[in-house]
């Protein structure tokens, strides 16, 4: 059992998908428990394999006992061990939290929804665990296809069109990645990541290798919505159902960042990425533009959920920039931010899910008096917002601190300035929401704005609390507490996991 964790964490959700779709025909009540059980086994295996990695170093699992360069291997080291735990936990928590909303939004489609949900998790976990470049492409497409299904399954009538735009961009991204792998295969004759890394050093001068690197990167960027290629993300994620956006927003971009870091660190090695191909400076500048644009576009939106999706675009800029600073601290910050950003995005999107559940719309004009109406949800939202801004006890502060020190060490002052600018903009963004939710009286629709200083209205003395159900609040509270806990244990995570995830060659 212990030795098979890497295989179990992918196969259990995969097979459960077929069981769920059958159960959907027989009795819809079985779908949810099966999905929870499958993802729980998966999460347990992820934690188990991470503990094994911490104890005894990288775990290599040969599928079908084929030897590495020929067969597919699952290679778990400190980097993907950490990402695996985050992915499986986020997927499980969101699954439990979204039970009610899924039941209310698509009572007829429980089977298809949960089937695609577990397939999506299979894809994300598979991308993270695999040690084979082509296998990664296949899982990328599994993730993307089930993601399109999940995003378009929504009561919002704009979701299908937004998802179709995502589908174009996702296909271009995946095809570019496939093309890059093709070039790599031409020059090395191998598809195993570590095998390629061993063959490559003698070929660093080859133009095909440089082309492969750039093409793979562009493909991954299109998938993660890095700045010039971000156009699809805000609409696709805004118009999706709460359950789908709670799974996809925190995870897809983060897993793609992981793929990029894997490309830099393992397949092409830091020596090639930072010294042979001289693209790190322009990429950091692109990241700067991504951060600034994300922040500015977030300022311009008048809808809470859309604002948060633009913040995701900015956060992608943080991680890409941090990874390309070319030093150890920046890379530590980027890896740490994968964990933190997945958690804090989950936190705010679960909160948004609760708000949507109760008031159906996340336009700013509908958020009045929300702190009175939903104090617990908004409390958790404040913790998530603090983490995105980067206020010390929460985990967002620590990864931002690493990113800023990495930027200073690399002399990339533009990146540091962009990080500080985006933090300040986040303060404005979230306090604007807090102001509407806290000071403006409950939505009673007479003249929003501060037209006349009216006397304190009486109804406020009897606040009407109308919280989301407990099954949605408890997961949200767990995540909010997790933000603070991860923040407090940042030192341990870096010391025991992230430190070993970065090769010693990177100083």
């Amino acid at each position, binding site marked *: 059992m212990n030795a098979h964790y890497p295989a179990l964490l992918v196969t259990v959700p995969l097979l459960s998908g077929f069981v769920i779709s059958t159960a959907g025909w027989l009795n819809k009540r079985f779908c949810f428990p099966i999905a929870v059980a499958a993802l729980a086994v998966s999460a347990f295996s992820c934690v188990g394999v991470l503990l094994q990695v911490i104890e005894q170093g990288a775990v290599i699992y040969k599928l079908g006992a084929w030897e590495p360069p020929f067969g597919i291997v699952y290679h778990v080291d400190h980097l993907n061990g950490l990402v695996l735990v985050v992915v499986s936990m986020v997927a499980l928590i969101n699954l439990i939290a979204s039970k009610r909303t899924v039941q209310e939004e698509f009572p007829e489609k429980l089977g298809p929804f949960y089937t695609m949900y577990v397939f999506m998790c299979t894809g994300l976990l598979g991308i993270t665990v695999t040690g084979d470049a082509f296998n990664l492409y*296949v899982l990328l497409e599994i993730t993307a296809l089930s993601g399109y299904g999940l995003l378009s399954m929504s009561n919002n009538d704009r979701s299908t069109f937004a998802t179709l735009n995502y589908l174009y961009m996702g296909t271009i991204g995946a095809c570019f990645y496939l093309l890059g792998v093709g070039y790599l295969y031409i020059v090395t004759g191998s598809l195993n990541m570590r095998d390629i890394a061993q063959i490559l050093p003698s070929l660093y001068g080859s133009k095909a290798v440089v082309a492969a690197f750039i093409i793979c990167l562009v493909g991954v960027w299109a998938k993660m919505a890095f700045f010039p290629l971000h156009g699809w993300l805000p609409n696709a994620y805004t118009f999706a159902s709460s359950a789908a956006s709670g799974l996809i927003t925190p995870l897809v971009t983060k897993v793609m960042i992981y793929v990029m870091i894997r490309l830099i660190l393992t397949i092409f090695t830091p020596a090639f990425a930072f010294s042979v191909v001289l693209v790190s400076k322009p990429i950091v500048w692109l990241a700067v533009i991504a951060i600034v644009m994300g922040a500015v576009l977030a300022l311009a939106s008048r809808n809470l959920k859309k604002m948060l999706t633009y913040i995701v675009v900015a956060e992608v800029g943080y991680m890409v920039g941090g990874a390309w600073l070319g030093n150890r601290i920046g890379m530590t910050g980027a890896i740490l931010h994968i964990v933190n950003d997945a958690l804090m995005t989950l936190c705010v999107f679960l909160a948004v899910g609760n708000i949507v559940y109760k008031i159906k719309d996340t336009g700013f004009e509908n958020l009045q008096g929300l702190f009175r109406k939903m104090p617990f949800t908004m409390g958790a939202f404040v913790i998530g917002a603090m983490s995105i801004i980067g206020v010390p006890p929460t985990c967002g502060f620590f990864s931002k601190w690493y990113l800023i020190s990495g930027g200073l060490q690399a002399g990339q002052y533009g990146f540091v300035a962009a990080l500080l600018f985006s933090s300040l903009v986040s303060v404005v963004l979230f306090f604007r929401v807090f102001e509407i939710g806290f000071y403006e009286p409950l939505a009673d629709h007479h003249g929003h704005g501060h037209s006349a200083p009216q006397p304190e209205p009486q109804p406020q003395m009897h606040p009407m609390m109308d919280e989301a159900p407990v099954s949605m609040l408890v997961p949200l509270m767990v995540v909010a507490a997790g933000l603070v806990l991860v923040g407090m244990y940042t030192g341990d995570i870096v010391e025991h996991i992230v430190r070993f995830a970065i090769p010693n060659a990177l100083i």
Partner: protein
Amino acid sequence: MEDIVQTVVAKYNYWIYITLMMLGLYAMIAKNNLIKKIVGMNIFQTAIILFYVSIGVKKNATIPIMQEVHGHAVNVAAYHNPLPHVLMLTAIVVGVATLGVALAFAIRIYNQYKTLEEDEILAQIRTREEQMGKI
């Protein structure tokens, strides 16, 4: 001039796949009709499949089915490389699945807006938003 001709002719498979890929990309970006966009996307994917298939081919070689085995040694130069072709089986399946999902979306969009022209859909979305008092 002769150099250019030489590079084009000697690597004609790459030129074909790049031309096809750019055609597909052009259709995805420039065309207004959703079905044409989807066709462009499929051309784009097929171009990469062609690229993979072409890199497995060797001169004076045959299909990778062993004719005679002399002991353990296999003359690899006598057979096409089957691996890229096998990989493309997966990519073809993925391409078909993506095409299916995209066409399903197109049907849903048509039922919703009664048109497949992107500018008309966007105009409808805009008027609807203005009616709802958003923006």
